[in-house]
């Protein structure tokens, strides 16, 4: 049962001359929830962007569902359907209605049957309490509603693996809980495998099976969540937790 969904071996990433990720090794089991923690600028976003090909990496290997990824644009287009990603800034397409935002991937990329995809999209919208918003444009939604649509848009492709990059960081506080509950539901009910980058320590503790702690582009520790939040292995992680008022 302990199938590995994703393995990262000796990954190195440079932005031009600047070395930002150093010898990253990581492996994630089916159904596992990993939270990626670390100070600002430590490379969290860069790392998860490498995992779905939005950033190039200069060295190392990524193995997804047992297959080594050959990083061509064509291959990434296939793999991205299996690895959903949600960003901090929601970024719905303003030229499309909510439902068309959601259907673009299923219909154009995956060539799913139109009416079946539409039925499913409506069901997904209902699951995030937005069934009445299918035909409105994103500009008419609040930040929290946009982010829920963005999550649904990613899920509509039936991904095996989800990446969340600080998806609550630009939301009003009263919107945050709703989004976190959706992610939690995905982790617990749907047994979704995921990497979550967040600054919400309480949330990280609630959902994480394991914490990967990153600093200056190095993974300093990978620790089971229970242990990390009570007694992390490194002083740096302890200092980080202290600084988060946690």
């Amino acid at each position, binding site marked *: 049962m302990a199938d590995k969904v994703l393995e990262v071996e000796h990954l190195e990433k440079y932005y031009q001359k600047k070395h930002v990720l150093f010898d990253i090794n990581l492996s994630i089991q089916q159904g596992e929830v990993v939270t990626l923690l670390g100070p600002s600028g430590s490379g969290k976003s860069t790392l998860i962007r490498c995992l779905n090909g939005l950033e190039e990496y200069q060295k190392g290997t990524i193995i997804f569902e047992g297959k080594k990824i050959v990083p061509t644009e064509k291959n990434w287009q296939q793999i991205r359907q299996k690895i959903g990603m949600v960003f901090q800034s929601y970024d719905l*397409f303003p030229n499309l209605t909510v439902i068309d935002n959601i259907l*673009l*991937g299923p219909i154009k990329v995956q060539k799913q049957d139109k009416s079946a995809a539409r039925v499913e999209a409506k069901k997904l919208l209902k699951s995030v309490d937005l069934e009445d918003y299918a035909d409105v444009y994103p500009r008419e939604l609040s930040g929290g509603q946009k982010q829920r649509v963005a999550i649904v848009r990613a899920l509509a492709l039936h991904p095996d693996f989800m990446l969340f990059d600080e998806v609550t960081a630009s939301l009003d506080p009263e919107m945050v809980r709703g989004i976190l509950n959706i992610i939690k539901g995905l982790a617990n009910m749907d047994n979704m495998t995921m990497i979550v980058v967040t600054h919400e320590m309480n949330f990280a503790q609630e959902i994480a099976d394991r914490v990967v702690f990153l600093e200056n582009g190095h993974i300093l520790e990978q620790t089971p969540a229970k242990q990390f939040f009570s007694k992390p292995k490194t002083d740096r992680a302890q200092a980080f937790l202290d600084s988060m008022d946690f």
Partner: protein
Amino acid sequence: MAHSGISVLLEGTNFTRLLGGLWVTVKIAAIALIVGIVLGIILGVLRTFKNRPLRLILRLYLEFFRIVPTVVLLFLFYYILPRQMNFNLPADQLATLVFALWVAAEMSDIVRGALISVPKHQRESGMAIGLNRYQLYRYVLIPQAISLEIPATINLATRVIKTTSLLMLISVMDVINIGQQIIEANNHSHPTGVFWVYGLIFLFYFLIDYPLSWWAKRLEKKRLERANG
């Protein structure tokens, strides 16, 4: 004798001849705009790709058509190319070609400008759901760029229509050339005919261009209101 001038327009087939000239003008402008805009969109998209040599060539193409005055372009294609390269086209088709190439150049810049002003996150969200490059442009980037580029495109159209007044220089039978012929033929009988003929031509151009520039202004105002609201 003031009323005798205007009758030049009604004499014989003068008025229908002027309308015929106007039709030639409009046809050249319209075909050049359609062909040029389509070609310009393609070139504009290509100019947002990473390929450097391609971008450089397209940039040079733009600069050439932007720097060289349209009159010179018309002369170049009409007088010089046929002799040097054995490239012969009737004057009106040649004019259409020159205008289309010019529109394509200007349009490529409008399209490129609009495309690169679509936020980077939009591109990434599109890639994240597995869109390929064609789909990304087709469903995400171009639709968002269009609302930015429509006013500039309409302004380009009004400029093209105005510039068709140069067509007589390569002896295309456009509205101005025909007007000129009518004036010359009626010089004795209608000495003030020149005012009426050009007055009518002015009216023709005004009736075509004014609604266009009004429309462009309105769209631009709406867009700004939406951007600020």
